[in-house]
């Protein structure tokens, strides 16, 4: 077989055929989780002497079935989208950002400050931009601490971000309680500029719900993240480091610099999420508004398989659970949703390596 006969035999194609296999690996775990959640939910509902079918119907009616409920789902999904995007961005580089709550709080705080500093009457676009930059910068600063400690000292980001959560939240609490709160409360004065219109202002059916323009921002950020990860060189480098750091190093990529960038931007994205509560809902920063959003962000990233658009969908899922809990509260305590959240996360986390093992074993893939 001579060399010349080789050239020209292969007709290059660009069939995105492999998406079927990747889709299987990606989608089966969340579906498994959904199944487990349903079974678990059934058990919990039954233990309360209620009928699962009736309760699920009520849940759907209370969330996607009426405008107010759906508005609340939109609102909650917005915050979760931001923290979910933040976690998934870090995970794409192989890093675990557990600091979502403090980054979100710091971002919200910065946005509130800007909202106070900017004069009333500042054009919305301008004010929003400034507030977002401030929020992102604050979150980014918080995110840069574990980044620096990891690249310089090899300190594991999981512990550092958890510890920093407590520290930053305590700092914010101290500042608010001591210097900037409205008497008898733990929140800052109302902002003058940067107020985001509510969805209810556009469509009165959503009256009463907290859904606001920040949702659009969330979608825009998700798109930006998608673009960065999959269309830019920076994203190529980042994903390479997350997938195979040794090969990335061989390819001339600076692993440390990627890590630095990844955690800092992860923090910035979480920080920007602060605008949902601060600019769009209450119009002030309140101590504790970020509670739980960081951990749920991990759940969202996991179920959304670390893909920006998957994250949005997962955010909607968890927001529905959360709002649904309120809707069914008369029949089953909303605390059931807290249980389901935990169950879903464990189910997905367990399913991912198991599904991968089964699928790859069945396809006879060799790693040699």
């Amino acid at each position, binding site marked *: 077989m001579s060399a010349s006969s080789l050239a020209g035999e292969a007709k290059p194609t660009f069939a995105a055929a492999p998406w079927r296999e990747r889709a299987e690996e990606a989608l089966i775990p969340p579906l498994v989780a959904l199944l487990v959640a349903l079974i678990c939910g059934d058990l919990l509902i039954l233990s309360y002497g209620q009928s699962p079918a009736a309760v699920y119907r009520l849940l759907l009616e209370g969330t996607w079935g009426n405008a107010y409920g759906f508005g609340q789902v939109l609102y909650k999904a917005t915050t979760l989208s931001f923290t979910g995007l933040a976690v998934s961005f870090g995970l794409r580089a192989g890093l675990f950002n557990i600091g979502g709550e403090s980054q979100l709080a710091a971002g919200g705080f910065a946005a509130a400050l800007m909202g106070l500093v900017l004069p009333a009457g500042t054009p919305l676009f301008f004010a929003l931009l400034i507030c977002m930059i401030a929020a992102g910068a604050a979150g980014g600063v918080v995110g840069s601490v574990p980044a620096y400690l990891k690249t310089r000292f090899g300190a594991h980001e999981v512990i550092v971000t958890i*510890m920093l959560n*407590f520290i930053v939240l305590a700092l914010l609490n101290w500042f608010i309680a001591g210097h900037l709160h409205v008497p008898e409360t733990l929140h800052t004065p109302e902002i003058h500029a940067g107020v985001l219109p509510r969805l209810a202002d556009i469509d009165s059916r959503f009256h009463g719900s907290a859904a606001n323009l920040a949702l659009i921002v969330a979608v825009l950020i998700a798109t930006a993240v998608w673009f960065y990860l999959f269309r830019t060189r920076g994203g190529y480098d980042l994903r390479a480091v997350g997938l195979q750091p040794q090969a990335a190093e061989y390819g001339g990529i600076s692993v440390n610099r990627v890590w630095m960038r990844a955690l800092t931007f992860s923090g910035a994205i979480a920080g920007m999420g602060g605008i949902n509560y601060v600019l769009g809902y209450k119009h002030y920063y309140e101590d504790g508004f970020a509670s739980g959003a960081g951990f749920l962000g991990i759940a969202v990233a996991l179920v959304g398989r670390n893909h920006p658009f998957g994250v949005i969908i997962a955010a909607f899922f968890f927001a529905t659970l959360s709002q649904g809990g309120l809707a069914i509260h008369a029949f089953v*305590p909303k605390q059931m949703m807290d*249980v389901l959240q935990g169950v879903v996360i464990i189910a997905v986390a367990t399913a991912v*390596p198991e599904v991968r093992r089964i699928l790859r074993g069945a396809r006879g893939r060799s790693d040699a």
Partner: protein
Amino acid sequence: MNPISFLTQMIRIAIPYLFAASGGVVAERAGIVSLTLEGFMLSGAFAAVLGTNYSGSPWVGVLCGILGGLIFSMIHAVATIRYRADQVVVGVAINLLAIGVTRFFLKLFFASSSNSPRVAGFGGNINANGFDNPLLWLGLLVAPVMAFVIYKTPFGLRVRAVGEHPDAAESVGVSVKRVRYAAVALSGMLAALGGVYLALDQHQFTDQMTAGRGFIAISAVIFGRWDPLRAAAACLLFAAAETLQIQLQGNHAIPSQFIEMIPYALTIIALAGVVGRAVPPAALGRVED
């Protein structure tokens, strides 16, 4: 400020940390990440109150509390050891699950969203300052006992081997999985005891009553460089800071929030190697065959 009252309060505050940190040390030494201490503690607290409430005896409550911690730790163990799920993710989930489950059953059994009815506890003699509580003495003994277990028993040797070089252990016939299951179970029961002490001392269960103590316990483990006695010392240190803050209330020299931060800041400093390197067990958190 009376030094005796400072000491007694400090010890009482330290007990939950001592229990949980001792549990955390053995699990992490075996290579399993223990972010779950918070969840184990909370479940132990609730189960203890449940048991005491329905039986009238705090000792039954203690047993129930241990069982509660054991159940949650087994969920963690199966997911991470058998199914090799990511230990950090499952850890976070266990904590969330514990919050959810305790809330759900709080509603179911006690029809409340915030607290259970009062239950019997141990001791009760005001003059004893809490030292007539057998759990307190148990808590003081836990760390030295754990040190003994880890350094002077075959089980402890296997735990140390499995957390540093699981292949080496496997090659001499030690079942890495079995050792890890045992270590996680132990951590679950011990951390639960911390919660039991907390709940019975306050004579009730309140929603999320552990309030981050499990994370302070992890800080103690790291700051104590995964050694039971050093971790215990860290627990006492953190408890001292907390006591200081309580007893200095009203004195605004140092705001309470900064005292709160101390354990966490110290942990970060330890990780950054400023005060000698805090090197975790080599196989910690690694998911391998």
